[in-house]
């Protein structure tokens, strides 16, 4: 049973003195899956990841990785995993090639270093010192370090945080390439678009627990409706109950000086909304619609923005 799972964890709890970082988290990641842990800063994503990576001890809970446990099979697991930490500074005065050779030397089996350099498109920077690389190149090198051991399972902790849009897309291509090779990838992110683009399934994590789990599309359809209508009116007080029960509407919430209405059918709700505002003598200040995203899922679930 568990052999078909890359990761299985039950009732994971991690306390740091008085702080509860992970509070009873359950997770199952299948082999070959690209799975995203999504949540705001401090949600417990990194702590969860580091327990799964065998870098910190959980306070309680069961963890199985590739059907093995850290206490019994640490060395075997280390050979079969690749990880990037949220923040690692590699030695400034080593070249890309030297760093990768060093990491390659730790593994019994692995990939050819030049092949990995090509995989992350760093051929031109092969002989450049680490300190000369851009943020995106450094991050791709970090991923390359995780790949030299030819891992079955990859952990990427916020691989694109702080990168410019172009570097993010380059990194996404690397991850999509790994997916195509059939690797299992577990990544954390607080970018919705990243999770929607890369992940087969996501778990939304808040305050150390999984509060929603599914494919990005499922979660959006289930929790956020298909679209969000955002509008603001000038002054007048609105009847929020009436708005929430407009045809095709799901829920109303206040948002950035106005309201956000999650809806299933934009073409039905918008005319009804306009008619309602007209009748309430509330002059419309602005109105826009967008397709629902994981961001809306998070706001719906917690009432907070992801990137607060």
């Amino acid at each position, binding site marked *: 049973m568990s052999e078909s799972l890359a990761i299985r964890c039950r009732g994971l709890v991690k306390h740091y003195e008085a702080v509860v970082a992970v509070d009873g988290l359950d997770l199952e990641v299948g082999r070959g899956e690209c799975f995203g842990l999504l949540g705001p800063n401090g949600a417990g994503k990194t702590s969860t990841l580091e327990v799964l990576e065998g870098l910190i001890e959980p306070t309680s809970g069961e963890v199985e990785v590739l059907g093995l446990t850290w206490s019994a099979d640490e060395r075997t697991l280390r*050979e079969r995993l690749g990880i990037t930490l949220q923040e690692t500074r590699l030695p400034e*005065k080593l070249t890309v090639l030297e760093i990768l*050779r060093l990491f390659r030397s730790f593994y019994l089996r692995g990939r050819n270093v030049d092949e990995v350099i090509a995989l992350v498109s760093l051929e031109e920077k092969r002989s450049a010192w680490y300190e000369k690389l851009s943020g995106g190149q450094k991050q791709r090198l970090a991923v390359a370090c995780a790949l030299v051991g030819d891992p079955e399972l990859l952990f990427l902790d916020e691989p694109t945080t702080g990168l410019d849009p172009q570097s993010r897309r380059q990194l996404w291509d690397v991850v999509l390439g790994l997916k195509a090779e059939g690797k299992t990838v577990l990544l954390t992110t607080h970018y919705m678009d990243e999770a929607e683009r890369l992940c087969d399934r996501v778990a939304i994590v808040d305050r150390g627990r999984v509060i929603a789990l599914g494919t990005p599309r499922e979660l959006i359809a289930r929790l956020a409706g298909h679209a969000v209508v955002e509008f603001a009116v000038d002054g007048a007080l609105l009847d929020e109950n009436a708005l929430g029960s407009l045809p095709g509407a799901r829920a109303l919430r206040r948002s950035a000086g106005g309201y956000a209405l999650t809806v299933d059918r934009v073409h039905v709700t918008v005319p009804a909304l306009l008619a309602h505002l007209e009748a309430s003598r509330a002059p419309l200040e602005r109105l826009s619609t967008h397709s629902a995203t994981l961001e809306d899922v998070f706001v719906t679930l917690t009432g907070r923005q992801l990137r607060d």
Partner: protein
Amino acid sequence: MSLLELTLTRLRLFFREPSAVFWTFIFPILLTVALGVAFRNRPPEPVSAAVEEGPGAPELAAALRRDSRIRSQVVSHEKARTELRASRAALVVSPGPPVSYTFDPTRPESRLARALVDDALQRAAGRVDPLRVVERRVTEPGSRYVDFLVPGLIGLNIMSSGMWGVAFVIVETRQKKLLKRLIATPMRKGEFLLSFVFLRMLFLALELPVLLGFARIAFEVGVRGSLALLVALSLLGALAFAGLGLLVAARSTNTQTASGLINLVMMPMFLLSGVFFSATNFPEVMQPLIRALPLTALIDALRGIMNEGAGLAAVARPALILALVAIASFALALRAFRWS
């Protein structure tokens, strides 16, 4: 395989850091040159005497000029007093009769001047010494300041490059979260630590020939005892300080704390262990403590081997101290070491 890569990595990082190369290789040479030149053996400085003007003064001055150990000049009464007060003259000679010497008997230099001046004047006046003596002067290599200094500097270098090269580098690796990244690979922790010890040995193989070779060429400082014993003791010293470095690095999470700790460990030895002057100058009550310091042990052993040709038996005690420090510090450090 990974031990080789780790050691190569350490070597590359060292040689790409100009300041590290400077402090390890260039600085000790500069220090040897500076101190070797400053304290080189010169002919003894002549004493200076002022001869007061007056009848008979030229004759006195002429008698003093014949003695190369005395420098004299004829000056006015007031000027002579000023020279004496300012210590530019150690003694004032006033023509007589009787010839008088004015000097401060609490100044050794003045007492020496009195003896030399009196000797010169008495001989000039016709004194004959009844006892025949000959002088034998000793300035042979092995007893000069530079001979004392070079083993001290080698010891100092082994200490400071060991402490910085191990402690600082490990703490920096930890601070950058690189240590955490490394232990997330199958890297064997023992190999990581061993790479530092290997590096210290490699460095010793460079440091020792450079320093000894330079001291030999520039100052003719030689090794009287066994070269193999010298290398063996240096190696023990390098291990002891690598161990202490590891201990300092065991728990520190940032380089500022580590630098402070490194200095805290090194400073007492820098001052007390007799790098620049003999540790026996310190009070008797401090001697047992000073003798137990690893740097004192190392320097005493190096000095013994280089200057006195000491054999294994003579350096057994310092060798034992170094071995104990190495074993104890490695054991403690490994127990306390924080990997993440």
